[in-house]
């Protein structure tokens, strides 16, 4: 296992794990927010990764370096392709992490984040988590996490209730309701 560096906001240590037990230990020890892995690893250790993801609310990115069936990539929050520009990867990571930071403030009933408002808009138009995820290039899993946070923050559980909130706050207009 190797420490690659610390990001400028001083919170993330990157490590490389080349086997699953290292990965498991590292996850327990450091509670990382982000995991970039080969789709093969996921395929082989589906259950383990799934439980880690659910328990630690870990964002996962597939590093795609050869052809994979699209189904295999569905479970990830995002995909990197081996020939992606570094800048593109950086932006993606920041975006994903900021969505996680948002969702951590679950006990506070703050105003919705920009991302949550965006997702709310699609939610009240009747789209499923899968559809929303496809549009925004995030996994249905992430959409569901956002959906839960939205409902918790607003204390509104039904779609028709959310619609009223969205109209009152100009997230959608009356005609769309």
């Amino acid at each position, binding site marked *: 296992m190797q420490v690659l560096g610390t990001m400028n906001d001083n919170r993330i240590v990157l490590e490389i794990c080349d086997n699953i037990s290292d990965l498991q230990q590292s996850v327990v020890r450091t509670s990382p927010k982000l995991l970039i892995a080969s789709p093969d690893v996921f395929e082989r250790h589906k259950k383990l990764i799934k439980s880690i993801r659910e328990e630690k609310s870990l964002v996962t990115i597939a590093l795609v370096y050869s052809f994979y069936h699209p189904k295999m990539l569905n479970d990830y929050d995002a995909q990197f392709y081996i020939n992606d520009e570094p800048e593109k990867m950086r932006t993606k990571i920041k975006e994903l992490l900021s969505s996680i930071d948002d969702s951590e403030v679950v006990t506070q009933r703050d105003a919705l984040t920009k991302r949550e408002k965006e997702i709310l808009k699609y939610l009240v138009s009747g789209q499923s988590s899968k559809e929303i995820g496809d549009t925004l290039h995030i996994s249905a899993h992430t959409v569901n996490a956002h959906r839960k946070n939205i409902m918790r923050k607003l204390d509104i559980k039904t779609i028709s209730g959310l619609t009223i909130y969205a109209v*009152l706050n100009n997230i959608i207009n*009356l005609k769309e309701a």
Partner: protein
Amino acid sequence: MQNEIISSSDILAEIIHSNYQVLVVLERLGIQLGFGNKSVSKVAEENNIDVTAFLLILNLFCNKNYMPKVENQFNAIPDILVYLKNSHAYFLVDKIPSIQNNIKKLVHILGDSKSELVESFYNNYIEEVTEHIEYENKTVFPYIEMVYQQYKANPNVVLKGENYGINIYGEHHDDIEDELKDLKNILIRHLPQVEDGKVRRKVLQQLFELESDLFSHGRIEDEVLIPLVKNLENNLSKLMLN
């Protein structure tokens, strides 16, 4: 009294003093006020009400955490049905329309087309509640009455139509509960402020009352009536086999 279990020797007047909402329970069971210092069982007896039914209803109504014991108190069934039917009528004829009126007033005060969504939200809620109540009135309760009549007439009689059991009772009231909660929160948290908040406060009070009334109503159905009828069905079919 909030968390204490009400027993047959408790004084009914005192129960009202500790929870005045109980007044609607008495109304639904046809008990008139003016019963002096009489106990729960005495009042039940004088009004021809099964005391077991009366106690189950009182306890579930007054105490959110009350855990009813359901065995074979089958003779409680008729009075529980009376209570539930009269509650249904109260919801449909009294409480729900009165809230609807106040919501209309509130929307008028807010005077903005967006607020009309609140009215249509509530109207939609009414539709769902009405549908649910009518199903119980027209399908579930008559079935229970039939089973009970069979049991009274002759416990050895074979249940007609074996597939027609209490499982016809539709599943729970979760959606309806969520909608009511959402409406409360929209009124508390999200609707714009108005100078005169009286109507809004009235609507909210009524919604809280309706919510807790519906809550105990649902528990009486789910945790007392339905299990009782299941036990009765089992009894009848056992007798049928013997």
